[in-house]
């Protein structure tokens, strides 16, 4: 039971990172982006490639950091991967979503995002193979937090949680303390008024994709680090991430963060009563519950 709680918080941090980016896109560009979760796969695989590259170029980097199964090379690769994934998100927007947006067809964008998701997921499968991989073959030892009840936590999970929280704090500071953050929130509140006040809308849209892509890349790597890397990461995390945005209320960044943890907890606690085969259905149950009782989200901001 307590082990489920711990695991829920740890995986919740990953959902939260994905959901923050998704909720920003959904709020700014007004469409449910079904290809967002594929950015997690892009991030996970980009980091895999650069980890190999850095380790080959500078073998000392391949050493593990402390008790983590993560190498210095992977730590650097995460940063590169965040940049690459952000660029991928901007590129997809430029190639597909922007052109449909300019014709003013919101629902067609939802539709197009399904097509984009299919293409990205299967191209990754074609390039990297359909099997699973790991960043490191070594099996990291779990730390025993308590013997009775038995609670195990792997160092990688602790690292993932702290890194995710750090990213969220940085995002919070950027949004609440910088001019850029103010303009971003202004656009979210009222795009027309923000433009009159001199905010460059096009730049803000790019910024939203960059933030969403960067966070998604981190989430993808963290998921790969604590589970495994497959081309199906996007497919498997799509519903949990959507559930987190709906729990938090679409458009609410803090709601999405909290929603991520809540969905992680709920999905893990559900395994106490449900056979594990049913876990892919749990996010949908959460969505149904929220829509039945509080459709604007548990942490609804008045703007949701």
């Amino acid at each position, binding site marked *: 039971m307590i082990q489920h709680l711990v695991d829920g918080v740890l995986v919740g941090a990953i959902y939260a990172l994905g959901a923050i980016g998704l909720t920003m896109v959904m709020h700014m560009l007004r469409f*449910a982006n079904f290809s967002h979760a594929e950015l997690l796969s892009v991030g996970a695989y980009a980091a895999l490639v650069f980890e190999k590259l850095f380790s080959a170029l500078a073998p000392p980097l391949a050493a593990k950091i402390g008790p983590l199964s993560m190498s210095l090379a992977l730590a650097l690769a995460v940063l590169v991967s965040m940049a690459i994934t952000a660029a991928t998100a901007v590129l997809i927007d430029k190639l597909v979503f922007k052109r449909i947006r300019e014709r003013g067809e919101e629902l067609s964008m939802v539709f*197009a995002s*399904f*097509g984009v998701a*299919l293409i990205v997921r*299967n191209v990754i499968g074609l390039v990297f193979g359909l099997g699973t991989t790991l960043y490191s073959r070594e099996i990291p030892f779990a730390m025993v937090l308590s013997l009775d009840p038995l609670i195990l936590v792997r160092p990688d999970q602790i690292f993932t949680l702290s890194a995710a929280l750090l990213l969220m704090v940085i995002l919070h500071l950027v949004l609440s303390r910088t001019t850029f953050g103010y303009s971003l929130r202004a656009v979210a509140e009222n795009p027309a008024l923000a433009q009159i006040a001199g905010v460059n809308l096009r730049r803000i849209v790019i910024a939203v994709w960059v933030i969403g892509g960067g966070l998604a890349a981190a989430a993808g790597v963290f998921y790969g680090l604590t589970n495994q890397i497959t081309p199906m990461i996007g497919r498997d995390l799509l519903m949990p991430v959507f559930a987190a945005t709906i729990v938090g209320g679409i458009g609410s960044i803090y709601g999405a963060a909290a929603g991520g943890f809540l969905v992680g907890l709920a999905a893990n606690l559900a395994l106490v009563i449900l056979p594990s085969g049913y876990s892919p259905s749990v996010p949908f149950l959460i969505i149904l519950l929220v829509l039945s009782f509080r459709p604007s989200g548990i942490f609804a901001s008045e703007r949701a």
Partner: protein
Amino acid sequence: MIGLLSYLVFFATVATILAIAVLGLNLQWGNTGLFNGGVAAFFGAGAYGTLILGGTPQAGHLGGFAMPYPLALLGGMAVAAALAWGVGRLTLKLRHDYLAIATFGVAVAFENVMRNAEWLSGGAKGLRGFERPLQEGIGSGLAYNALYLAFVASLLLLTYLFLERLVSSPFGRLLRAIREDEEAARSLGKNPAKVRLTAFVTGSVIMGMAGGLYATFYAFVSPQDVLPILTFQIWAMLIVGGAGNNRGAILGAFLMWGAWTASGWALSRHAPVEAQIYAGSIQYVLIGSVIVGMLLWRPQGLFPERLVVSQSGGATRPAPAK
């Protein structure tokens, strides 16, 4: 020769059944502007419903009510209606993305439950023990398949005629009015949420019928038949054919099903053995590219909706595929 003929009958039967599902989607998306991301669930509800109600008793899972075939098919459609009503009632009042997310979620959950709930659906092994109607009299050869093709083709025709009547009726005008300008429709005293729900359930019932016919044809259904790719295939058929145009939707279904089977055949025949496991991925990329490509370059489809403006002048304009 007989081989080719029976293959053509087989191909036409599946394409006809899928065309019925595309017509159901066209009512939702083409005429009403509702995004249904879970076609596979409503198709599957009809398929499982029909087989469970019409099948012979089986050990180990629900079913075997051995109902007369028309009742079983109607029952399958009712299961699809119930599912659509539940999802629609929760989401149709909200922002349009909620319907997209919830319907996609239904499809994921439906496939997941069918795969796991052995007592209900036979689990991953699927649902067996169904006897195709009239099979004893006709046998299971080409004659039966040709007759079955005639049966599904007449249902396709009936569905088409029903939808054409519906779309040109006052209710059809109301659907388009809500799609184009919800505020204006509301100001005329219409209730958009209720009308949307009606259109959503009707479309899903049609998908459920297609699913029931599909399961009848194979006398078998398993979770492999209700994977999300089915939703994308049906979407691609509609967008290729032209959302809003029922004849386009049918043509799109035959065209895309032809392209899908031809590409599958070409890949299995010409791709090297070690690349065979990637054939599916290549086909998925193709479907995704068709969807994105059509939306970018020809969003109105190959056969656009022909909107007749009911004022004098009778001007037509291409559909703003919304």
